[in-house]
């Protein structure tokens, strides 16, 4: 089944999300649809899957123009979508989820769960998507949940499958498995669209690449001949640097001194188990490690959101082990939180309100209990301009910003005040390449001004690119330390996996 999108234009009020987009999706081929956050990828695919209706243009399937009046029509026409956020019932089994809405029924409308299981197993074996049809969704890992989403789409006999940022939630190993799956689907003759903003993934798996920028197709690429740099330039509209330019560090006084820290997690298990390290002014210390090895709890303890059970934290020579988060902010500690959606921003607040989320009480922004909004607005506008947060107005809701711009908003808030230490957790997670480059540049600038910087990231490239010293965390302990620029990815990778930690 060949699908052609011709001249698609979609507007939301004054915002043009897609403008005269032409795209062809062919069977037996993986089309990589590349673009920054907010470039209009998801809108385009929502038009294809019947969720939105295009203002102009048409969808042509096998030479015939079709008109989708809702997602049902698109599914009937054989177009399936695997969303970034899964649409599964957590307490149902795999088989129940797959057949939900199109259940096989016996006499008197009785649910024939046996038939459902059988059908699920058939699809599993046919496409090599191994999964136990009786497993409960909430008990299986994310990678398997994604498989269930794929089986769901196949069960509805889709010939065109759209994957919206499918790798965002997967571990590196699951990503490799996922690539295997979509290759086998391609070989089975399905037409596949792979939406992403990660360059190396699209280069690895796509047969053809289309790049979307500001709602328009700005170029096509051949994965065999294109390079990262070419695609990134198409995506962002200017050349992008992948490596961070930085001068050698000039370490000064110790800013942060952590000694023998023990921290519990929500389940009262030891998450941080006797960690000691220090961060000096003018240096970047990176903490590498696989997600869930105590980094989250360590950062929360340092920033005052979680009280340690043992050990001390000193900031500029003062003991802050029991200090509140507010006291730490005021003494010059900045914090870029791990999950901006959960704790970094308030989506229903406007940009100005978010900009003062942890400084609103400051003399600059309030007199007594009276907030001085005019000052807040003016200052926000300056910071937004300075940090290149793309928005039309400081009164826009934070929800309406793309992920990259939300993160720039958080970085701007934290770096625009006078700080001595920055704790950045996953500073570029889910952020497009243009913004990553910018955020990294700002972090290094902060270091060069003499701030101490602690970066916690699961992206090894990021850690290696930014850090002057690298610590590796495994099961709540620091198991290895490397000098930045001297350690190889292999050595660090091994330490992250716990090699040599047995001692």
């Amino acid at each position, binding site marked *: 089944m060949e699908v052609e999108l011709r001249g698609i234009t979609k507007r939301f009020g004054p915002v043009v999300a897609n403008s005269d987009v032409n795209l062809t999706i062919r069977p037996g081929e993986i089309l990589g649809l590349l673009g920054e956050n907010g470039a209009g990828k998801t809108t385009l695919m929502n038009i294809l899957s019947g*969720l939105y209706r295009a203002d102009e243009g048409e969808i042509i399937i096998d030479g015939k123009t079709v008109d989708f009046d809702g997602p049902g029509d698109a599914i009937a026409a054989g177009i399936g979508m695997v969303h970034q956020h899964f649409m599964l019932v957590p307490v149902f089994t795999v088989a129940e989820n797959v057949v939900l809405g199109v259940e096989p029924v016996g006499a008197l409308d009785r649910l024939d769960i046996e038939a459902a299981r059988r059908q699920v197993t058939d699809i599993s074996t046919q496409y090599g998507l191994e999964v136990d049809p009786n497993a409960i969704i909430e008990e299986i890992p994310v990678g398997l949940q994604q498989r269930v989403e794929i089986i769901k789409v196949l069960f509805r006999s889709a010939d065109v499958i759209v994957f919206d940022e499918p790798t965002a939630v997967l571990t590196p190993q699951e990503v490799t498995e996922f690539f295997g799956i979509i290759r086998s689907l391609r070989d089975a003759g399905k037409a596949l669209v792979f939406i992403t903003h990660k360059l190396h993934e699209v280069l690895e798996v796509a047969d053809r690449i289309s790049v979307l920028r500001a709602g328009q197709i700005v170029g096509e690429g051949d994965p065999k001949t294109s390079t990262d740099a070419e695609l990134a330039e198409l995506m962002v509209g200017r050349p992008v640097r992948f490596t961070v330019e930085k001068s050698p560090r000039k370490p000064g006084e110790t800013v942060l001194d952590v000694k023998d820290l023990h921290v519990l997690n929500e389940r009262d298990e030891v998450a941080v188990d006797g960690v000691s390290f220090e961060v000096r002014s003018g240096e970047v210390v990176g903490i590498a490690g696989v997600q869930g090895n105590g980094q989250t709890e360590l950062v929360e303890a340092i920033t005052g959101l979680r009280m340690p059970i043992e050990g001390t934290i000193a900031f500029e020579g003062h003991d802050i082990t029991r200090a509140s*988060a507010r006291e730490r902010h005021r003494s010059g500690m900045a914090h870029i939180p791990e999950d901006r959606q959960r*704790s970094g921003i308030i989506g229903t607040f406007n940009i100005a309100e978010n900009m003062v989320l942890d400084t609103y009480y400051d003399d600059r922004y309030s007199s007594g209990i009276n907030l001085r909004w005019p000052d807040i607005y003016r200052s926000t506008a*300056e910071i937004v301009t300075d940090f290149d947060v793309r*928005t039309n107005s400081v009164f826009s809701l934070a929800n309406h910003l793309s992920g990259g711009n939300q993160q720039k908003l958080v970085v701007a808030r934290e770096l625009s005040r006078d700080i001595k230490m920055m704790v950045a957790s996953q500073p570029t997670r889910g952020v497009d390449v243009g913004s990553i480059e910018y955020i990294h540049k700002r972090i290094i600038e902060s270091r060069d001004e003499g701030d101490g910087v602690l970066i916690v990231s699961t992206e090894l490239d990021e850690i290696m690119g930014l850090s002057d010293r690298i610590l590796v965390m495994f099961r709540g302990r620091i198991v290895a330390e490397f000098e930045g620029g001297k350690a190889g990815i292999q050595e660090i990778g091994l330490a992250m996996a716990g090699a040599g930690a047995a001692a």
Partner: protein
Amino acid sequence: MTVNDRIDKATGDLLKRAVVTRFEIEELVVVPIFAVLIALLLGGLTMVATGVDLPTIGLSYASLLQGSVGSLNAISETLTSAAPLTLAGLGIALGFRAGLFNIGAEGQLLIGGMAAAVVGFSLQGVPLVIHLPLALVAGMAAGALWASIAGWLRAATGAHEVISTIMLNLISFRLVDYLLRNPPIQRPGRSDPISKSILESSELPALLQWLDPNLRIHAGIILTLIVVFVVYWLLFRTTIGFEFRSAGANPDAARYGGMRSGLIIVSVMAVAGALAGLAGANQVLGVLGRASPGFSAGIGFDAIAVALLGRGHPVGVLFAGLLFGALEAGGRNMQVGAGVSIDLITIIQALIVVFIAAPMLVRTLFPFAFAKRGNQREGS
């Protein structure tokens, strides 16, 4: 243009406020109007279904209008009913903004009213300028303390405020009964539960009795307008309100911003309780002149609907309070004028809330009243 000029211009552009869109106007004005219309229509159908003939239905709606805005007396009644609904509604709306669902306004109103009554009848020989404010403050303080119990339980133990405020309501009903049956509160010589009458120096002054002694409107409506402004200021212009709203919109982000969630929860409940307590004081000092069992008359529950209808915004709550006040005043007139049960008003109130809560339904029912728009919201 120099670089600095360009930056100034970019900054200036960012400071332009977005124009209010047609969609927002529709949501705020057109939807409520049609919700009221359709609720009245369905109310009429309810009357038909219960065997009321058409002329009587017409007469009932005429008396509803007449009794709510048809005369000076009607307007006086409407405003008198609207004041406590708005005051208590403001407290509940404040709770919504901070993510707390306070069902306890009824109990807070009773406790606040009791305290106002006690101060109102106890202080002999104090001038009005001192006595009245004291009585009002007593009402607010008692309501605040009562509500803080639920706030403290939530902050310290995690007990959900919906449950604890409901339970506190039940306790307050019996507590008020008990107090009213015992000295020093019970009126001497009475065996039924009723308090002494408040002294004239603690009464909220009637505003228009020089025109006609039947006009019940009193200074409480002015107080209400002031409180609407104060709550607006508190929520949107102060650091305290910023903390309340942050904690309501995203508790994790509030904690990250260095706000203390426990303190916020207790303060929000206290302010909400103070407003409900003020509503109770308003009734005792402005309308009833004494406390009796159940003098709250369900105002604390109707106020939940008022807060929802007002979309948690102080000005919205004022309009919702006026609407409910008008329905109440008109409803009483309808009962007298057309002999239709006042319960019908409850049905109409409920229907209005249902339709306002479901704007899409109203849009579907009256497509001609709304501008056509592209489907769904902004995407990425």
